[in-house]
């Protein structure tokens, strides 16, 4: 199996290039009301140059564009840290039920009992899964959850008299962790990863003091390793009045196996678009619910969904709340999908998810060991990080390997992340991939490792089989063509 066979690949102009004056793709009712004229001073002067196309034009355009994309539905997409698992179609179907899709957020409570019941239940499920006490569904993505979580920590510290100044973050952390810390007004103290690829309690102890508001930690970390000292780490942070933020991007490694709350985490975000199968959609939307321990509950964003005698209600009056992080109730459409997934899997199914996700990562690790450098020896959870150390000897880099994989019909893994591994190749297979698929992928990786020795140039010039070759990113950044130029 490989990309680059012959087949339908159309050149497709931009919509604006095929627009024709007077062509129509819409179907609107005739106006039944008298035409009114708003004050001239308010009238738009220049119409936006939207394209003019027929419906068939539009269908073809986007059908063709779609076929240029790699996706989970196309083949294995082992993007580390992104949990590219199968996105069930039943989720899509139920999220489109008119009783979910066409409901307005400001309808009176008694007319949205279905939405509220679903949200209330999902909060409880996520609390149970994470071992936490309360959940907000408002954040729109992981990074947004981080923002929410750090705001909660800050609110807690402030309530205790001092917001404090710093956040500790291991150097293997995702970029959103330090970026979020800055947004919440914290300085970042980077914690060096230990030699075994884990955060050491001693390293935390060394930096933890009364100026530190808390620690952000990803567990398993981005090297795919469980933070074995997590309990001690949390104790250390707590002992100095700090709180521990858990980046839950890797929850796929833990379902029903270990709960962050049980390890001492105080606040945690989920990425429903990773662990709970809501589709990535080419970059979103996602959903980043935040789970907290009791101590942080008073600070959760408003509004809250609460269960009352006569049904569910939306409660706005939470004086200690950090406020809102988003209009309305969060990415409800994604919540429906995640809820559906949890209800389909049940407790046993979720457990199996994690077991097989971890098995798959370990299998890849075993099969590629030797062909690619493994920076750490310890036991792998749901993903595995290699480096290009071996390939570098023949001048081949991680980027070359990634691009070459495309020729074999696979999406490249995450590359050059985490930063603690030089030339990282970060592979997360997820549980929805079969052994055969993993074998085909590993065969391709092994074959690429061979090619790297024999024909480095083949790899430097890869990909060869994709619709388009390596793109000039420098030119893009220099010339900054960020929109169609209508003059040309």
């Amino acid at each position, binding site marked *: 199996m490989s990309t680059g066979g012959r087949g339908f690949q159309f050149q497709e102009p*931009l*919509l604006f290039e095929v627009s024709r004056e007077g062509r129509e*793709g*819409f179907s*609107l009712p005739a106006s039944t009301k008298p035409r*009114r004229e708003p004050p001239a001073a*308010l009238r738009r002067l*220049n119409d*936006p*140059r939207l394209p003019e196309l027929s419906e068939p034009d*539009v269908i073809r355009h*986007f059908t063709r564009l*779609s*076929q240029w994309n790699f*996706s989970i*539905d196309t083949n294995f997409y082992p*993007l580390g840290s992104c949990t590219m698992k199968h996105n069930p179609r039943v989720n899509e179907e139920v999220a489109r039920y008119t*009783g*979910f899709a*066409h409901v307005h957020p*400001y*309808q*009176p409570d008694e007319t*949205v009992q*279905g939405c509220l*019941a679903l949200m209330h239940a999902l909060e409880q499920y996520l609390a149970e899964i994470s*071992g936490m006490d309360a959940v907000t569904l408002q954040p729109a*993505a992981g990074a947004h959850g981080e923002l929410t979580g750090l705001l909660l920590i800050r609110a807690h510290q402030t309530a205790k008299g001092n917001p404090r100044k710093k956040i500790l973050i291991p150097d293997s952390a*995702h*970029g959103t962790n330090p970026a*979020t810390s800055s947004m919440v*007004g914290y300085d970042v103290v980077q914690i060096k990863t230990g030699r075994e690829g884990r955060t050491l309690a001693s390293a935390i102890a060394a930096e933890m003091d009364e100026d530190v508001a808390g620690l952000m930690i990803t567990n398993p970390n981005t090297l795919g390793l*469980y933070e074995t000292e997590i*309990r001690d780490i949390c104790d250390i942070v707590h002992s100095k009045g700090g709180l521990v933020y858990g980046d839950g991007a890797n929850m796929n490694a833990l379902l*029903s196996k270990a709960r962050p709350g049980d390890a001492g985490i105080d606040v945690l975000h989920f*990425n429903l678009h990773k662990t709970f199968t809501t589709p990535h*959609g*080419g*970059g*979103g*939307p996602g959903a980043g619910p935040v789970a907290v321990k009791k101590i942080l509950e008073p600070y959760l964003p408003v509004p809250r969904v609460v269960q009352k005698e006569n049904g569910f209600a939306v409660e*706005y009056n939470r004086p200690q709340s950090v*406020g*809102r*992080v*988003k209009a*309305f109730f969060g990415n409800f*459409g994604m919540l429906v999908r995640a809820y559906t997934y949890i209800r*389909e899997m*049940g407790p046993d199914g979720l457990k199996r998810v994690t077991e097989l996700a971890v098995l798959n990562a370990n*299998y890849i*690790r*075993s099969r590629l060991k030797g062909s690619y450098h493994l920076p750490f020896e310890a*036991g792998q*959870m749901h993903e595995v990080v290699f480096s290009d150390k071996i390939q570098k000897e023949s001048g081949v880099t991680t980027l070359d390997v990634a691009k070459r994989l495309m020729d074999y019909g696979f999406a490249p893994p995450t590359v050059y992340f985490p930063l603690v591994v030089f030339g990282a190749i970060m592979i997360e297979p997820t549980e929805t991939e079969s052994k055969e698929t993993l074998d085909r992928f590993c065969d391709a990786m092994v074959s690429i490792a061979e090619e790297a020795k024999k024909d480095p140039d083949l790899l430097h*010039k890869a990909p060869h089989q994709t619709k388009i*070759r*390596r793109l000039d990113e420098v030119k893009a950044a220099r010339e900054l063509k*960020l*929109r169609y130029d209508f003059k040309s």
Partner: protein
Amino acid sequence: MRYLPHTEQEIREMLKTVGVANIDALFSTVPDPLLFKRPLELPAALSEIHLRNHLRDLSRKNAHGEDWSQFLGGGCYSHYIPSSVSYLISRGEFLTAYTPYQPEVSQGTLQAIFEYQTMMAEILGLEVANASQYDGSTGTAEAIRLAVAVTKRHKALVARSLHPEYRQVILTYLKNEGVAVEELPFTPAGTIDRAALKKSLDEQTACVVAGYPNFFGVVEDLSDVAEAAHAAGALLITSTPEPLALGLFKSPGEMGADIAVAEGQSFGNAMSFGGPGLGVFACRKDYVRSMPGRLVGETVDAEGQRGFVLTLATREQHIRREKATSNICTNVALCALAATITLALWGKGGFKELSRMNYDRAEDLKEKLAAVPGVRIAFSGTTFNEFVLIPRQKPTDVVAKLIGDKILAGIPLWRWYPELAEGLLVCVTEMNTDEQIDRFVAALRRLS
């Protein structure tokens, strides 16, 4: 389990390759006391049939659909979405792709985003637009952050007439960034109080933030506000919860806005109980290096073919970490795609026509309601497709009573505006039939 392909035999083979005796051994690095040993307390697995029944039952507990008439706006609108949109965004190649980090295998998403950026820049009348923010509220907060970064000033003047939940988000986002947020009151026309603006605008001011249309549905010419802001060295940020208005009314760019944000849900995205939305974000090209969010740029490949890539990533968290312009990573790409497809179908003509139709219908309803004894229109300013009504009875009572008629009558303003406790925000779009409008008027007349 249909999503899990492993057969028992494969699991055995894989364990052998890995060199462990059983799956539990794979979790040996988790300290034993941290291992979770009881079953999760979650409802048991449902089959697809029962799953659908269950979700269908839940969805039917929500008032929706043909039996109900709804007149709710306030930042979330019911608009016509062509059937093709749902089909196209459901195609797996779009739906199940990740962020287009590897351009050679993501040209579909990338070209679509480039088209989206172009359309949004055109509609808002600004030079560049990014690939999306979460929604209008967070986009507005990020716009202030951008203004602060660009002006190096730390005060934001925010119109009280801006969507109240956007204002709440602004406060939440900015409270730890040393930015002072001051409110600009509104006039009886529903517009920004220019005198107050004049007073507040000073050399500390990074930006003036105006709703356009504002939360009361009022559309005001902000050209003078832009001039005043610019004169003081500040930026004008417009925040548009209903960008369909821009088919008829001046674009933010035409009024001199420096940053324009919108909630793009109106373009092809279902209301979905308020989320996901689509944060549209545009600004002057000068600010592009301080902009939050992803940007797609045009370039060429090794063979000289046109292609598209994510560009200026040096602004972003995965490269710049704590110095990034924003922490945003996942955005709302699929919602942006829905907007792109919808606008491609509506096209230049449809966008304008739909905008007019909303205006005409809202004006018609406004007149009819104003003619109901005891009912008033709160503000004298021009409005687009929603307006504030002062019914004879308490707004919450009106809303509660009309539920019996299967009418969702509007949004009572008391929660956010104690000074407008008698106000009910009423919206009408092309989706409200003439008959619904007539029934609504009749119902309100009954309550008068």
